[in-house]
């Protein structure tokens, strides 16, 4: 399909130019990196930009590093690059798990984490590690930078805290110093790529601290505060897990849509939380787990 809508394209060579363009075009300009969401949205008439600003020539936005307990992911770093980077997997297993569930290789080789969080769909897999690792979204405009905690980033379905003259330059995650691990479980309708029917991310450490986040189960991806409060400080046990599962109806607010009924989302969330907690514990104990296979259906 050719794109019926017409727009201009710029490929600035420095960040300043990007921000100047963004400042003058405001919401008529879109930052273009992977384009895997944006081009579809333009084709389908969901957005009608006047200008696309390609940021792929800017080396500073293509930075991926782990320094002093901070994992920094530049705006043009792709999912494939995240998956293929060993220190990402080591530092943040849940992010590695979640990235592997996003679309398929041919999309992941272009799609970026920054672009992904800008889409702010309720089913955003990558939101759960960002929520659990207390990420900060770095935004910039011609005035300066603004660091937005991920907990304040998602405002509503497809709506974020970014302003119309800002762009995301990168995302930082806090990697805890103590021994911890994490896992992301995603339920889809079949073995291939799918938007999540439900997603649960679980982080825990050896001191029995827990951070839990979910996606596709509420208007925005969220932390599960009630469940975390119940679990914190306690050793996992059958009873504790059952008690956590019992809190799910108070924690999530799923809807019925084309992918799943509300009832199935509620039911399966209990299964996912239970298996996710056990898998995280296994990982913490050094056992190999395969998150994709934990919910059944795949060889």
């Amino acid at each position, binding site marked *: *399909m*050719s*794109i*019926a809508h017409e727009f201009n394209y710029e490929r600035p060579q420095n960040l300043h130019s990007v921000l100047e363009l963004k400042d003058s075009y405001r919401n008529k300009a879109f930052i273009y990196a992977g384009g895997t969401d944006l081009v579809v949205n333009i084709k389908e*008439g969901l957005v009608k930009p006047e200008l696309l600003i390609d940021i792929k020539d800017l080396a500073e936005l293509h930075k991926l590093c782990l320094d002093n307990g901070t994992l920094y992911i530049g705006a043009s770093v792709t999912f494939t690059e995240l998956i293929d980077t060993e220190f990402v997997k080591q530092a943040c297993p849940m992010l590695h798990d979640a990235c592997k569930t996003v679309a*398929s290789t041919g999309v992941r080789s272009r799609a970026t984490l920054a672009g992904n969080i800008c889409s702010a769909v309720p089913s955003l897999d990558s939101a759960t590690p960002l929520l659990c690792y207390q990420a900060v979204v770095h935004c910039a405009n011609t005035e300066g930078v603004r660091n937005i905690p991920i907990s304040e980033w998602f405002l509503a379905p497809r709506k974020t805290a970014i302003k119309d003259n800002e762009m995301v330059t990168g995302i930082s995650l806090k990697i805890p110093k103590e021994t911890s691990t994490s896992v992301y479980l995603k*339920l889809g*309708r*079949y*073995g*291939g*790529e*799918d*938007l999540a*029917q439900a997603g649960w991310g679980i982080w825990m450490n050896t001191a029995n601290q827990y951070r839990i986040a979910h996606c596709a189960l509420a208007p925005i991806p969220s932390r599960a505060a009630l469940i975390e409060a119940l679990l914190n400080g306690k050793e996992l046990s059958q009873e504790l897990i059952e008690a956590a599962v019992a809190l799910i109806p108070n924690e999530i607010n799923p809807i019925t849509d*084309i*992918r*799943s*009924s509300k*009832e*199935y989302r509620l*039911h*399966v969330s209990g*299964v996912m939380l239970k298996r996710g907690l056990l898998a995280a514990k296994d990982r913490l104990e050094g056992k190999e787990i395969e998150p994709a296979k934990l*919910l*059944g*259906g*795949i*060889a």
Partner: protein
Amino acid sequence: MKEYTYIGKDVVRIDGLEKISGAAIYGDDIDFGANLLHAELVSSTEAHAIIKSIDISEALKVKGVYKIFTGKDFPYKFGLYMKDRFIFAQDKVRFVGEQIAAVVARNPGAAKRAAALIKVEYEPLPAVLDQMQALADGATLLHPDLENYPHVPWFFPKPGTNIAHWRKTRKGDMKGGFNEADFILEDTYTVPRYAHCAIETHVAIGKFDYSGRLTVWSSSQSPHTQRHLFAEALGLGHKDVRVIAPHVGGGFGGKAGVTMEIIPAALATKLKGYAVKLRYSREQEFINTYQRLGVVAKLKMGVTKEGRITALDHKIYWDAGAYVEYGANVVNAVGLSAIGPYRIDNISIDSVCVYTNLPPGGAYRGFGYSEMLFGLESHVTRVANELGIDQIEFRRKNAIKVGDTTAYGAKMNPNGLLECIDKVVKAIDWGNKPAPTNPNTVIGNGFSLFWKAPAMPPNASSSAFLKFNEDASINLIISGMDIGQGYQTVMAQIAAEILSVPPSKIRVETPDTDRNPYEWQTVASHITWSSGNAVKKAAIDAREQILSLVQRVFNLPLEELYLEDEAVKCTQDPSFNLPLKSFVVDGIMTKDGTFKGGPINARGMFMPEFSSANGDPETSQGGHPNVHYTVGAAALTLEIDKDTGKMRVLKTALAIDAGKALNPDLVRGQITGGMLQGLATVLYEDMRYDSKGKLLNPNFTDYKIPTAMDVPDEIIPIIVEVPQPDGPFGARGIGEHTMLPAAPMVANAVEDALGLRIKSMPITAEKVAMAYLASKKQ
């Protein structure tokens, strides 16, 4: 048994190099130069409405727009078996997505921008969105003038209702049969609509040149049928209509007959000198091409306690959509065959084709048999279990055998159904189950038989031309379509076997109706059988020309001459060896310097002259509507996660009686491909409509077709060969059949594993998990 050189061998496909090197040309790949125009459609947003006005004024202002057409430009009806469609909606729209107008522009972007500016004003009418609602008293009629629609004589519409066709089949004494029964099971099964999802969307280009001839390039399973319908609908002579069919990027029935191709064909007639192209987007592919029909099936089966089926009452109500010109024949075919591969003396079948305000139903791999077998083979398992008889034994006991009578009274063809059952039982290790891989899962085994006959008019025919080239290579000129099944390769093997020329020296091209001889359509899994017979006859014709020439020139007895290794040889004279390339074009030089013979050009034709659609309208007895049935059996081992409902096929086996597998590897390829397509229809595919008749999932994001991650761990393809007496080398078709058993065997495996009977497709993980949860709470 005779040892063949090429028949029955895993000959490598002759279209491989072309398709794998990127050389193969599909419809969208053809260049038409600067005079190509692009069409974009305006589609109905209403399921049922009167069109009050169409305002094209804003659209005409868009730069690059050439012309805009609406229904008033083309007041012609068309249809394959029943003429109930228009090229564009006339006064009314009958489904969301129906074409109302077309913008023709210099580039696709302009066409699209302009189409979005056309304003259609509707006066909504009540819409009927399912077949049971459409059958109710007082339901809105979709086609009040149904009585005036021309149709084939074997259709029985009921004017004044939404019933477009009602196939009744009656045999024996049904009441007596149920009286005789010790046990009767009655239940209802439902199947939703499905989409073909060929990866290539529909595309067609029409060109009406200044001399007044129409050429249409189209991605099609039916070039000759298209030519015929274009000529009829547009009032042109057949010689002035030419359909060129390049490679097809998947068919599955979706490119059979005529759907959107008539639009560029019709547009072209008003755009003399230009070529006009219409390529469907994926969304259009989902909302305005044929779909597989939805089904509500009410089954009542009576059995003796020994396990003999005494009576079957099978009522099938089809959601056939807004136009049924092709879909009604799905209904007809199943109405003749809804006993399944069983011998049953007392039968009543009602197969009812119902108009609804949803997209037109049509051919889809399996042609209604998948939908019918979901209910029947679920029911058979349940009946056997209720009786306490092993379901395999029950199937064996009632399996139809050669010489038994079918539902419409004709004799069943030779078949290897029992052998298929035995081989599947062995391959799947029926009766044993592997241990679950973890505590959350349970294992179930499921079984199903299947059968299907080609659904064709009694005079559907095939033909072939064959010409030799100087080097004894061959151009085999035929008009079936290689839609992926390997047709070209298998036809080359048939000619190769007769003429002793290797398939690699035979070129088969996609057809052009000007140059290639008649073929009805590439549908119904009949092409190996029907076109194969025509090719075989053409090859025999060529052989006879060759041998009689050699006999004439060399004075050798005809009965001593034969072909081997691309040469004519003589049984009585081992030294006689005349290479074909020495004479098949140039002729044979004699002593006086004259030449005898000349280019070898041959022909073959096949029509099943025994077939007849003249059954009694009230009973279907008396005709011979089906040429033969292909049968088989399949089973699978399914692992189910009880809590998430997610399912994994650990192992599946499918045995099919191919009569003779002309190319076993291609048969195995049909089995692996058809099996996955069938499993997808039961495990996750599903067309979902909202309460206004709008499709909610017109894309691959939410209409899921299987990926590489969704392949069963092990697929065991099994070929059984009980020859078809009138098939080429004994072959019959197998292409559609490989997806038929998937749905019922999954349903049967779910029950085996969890004790839950799911009677509606698809059987998604969600459905299984929620049913299991409910059963635990009881």
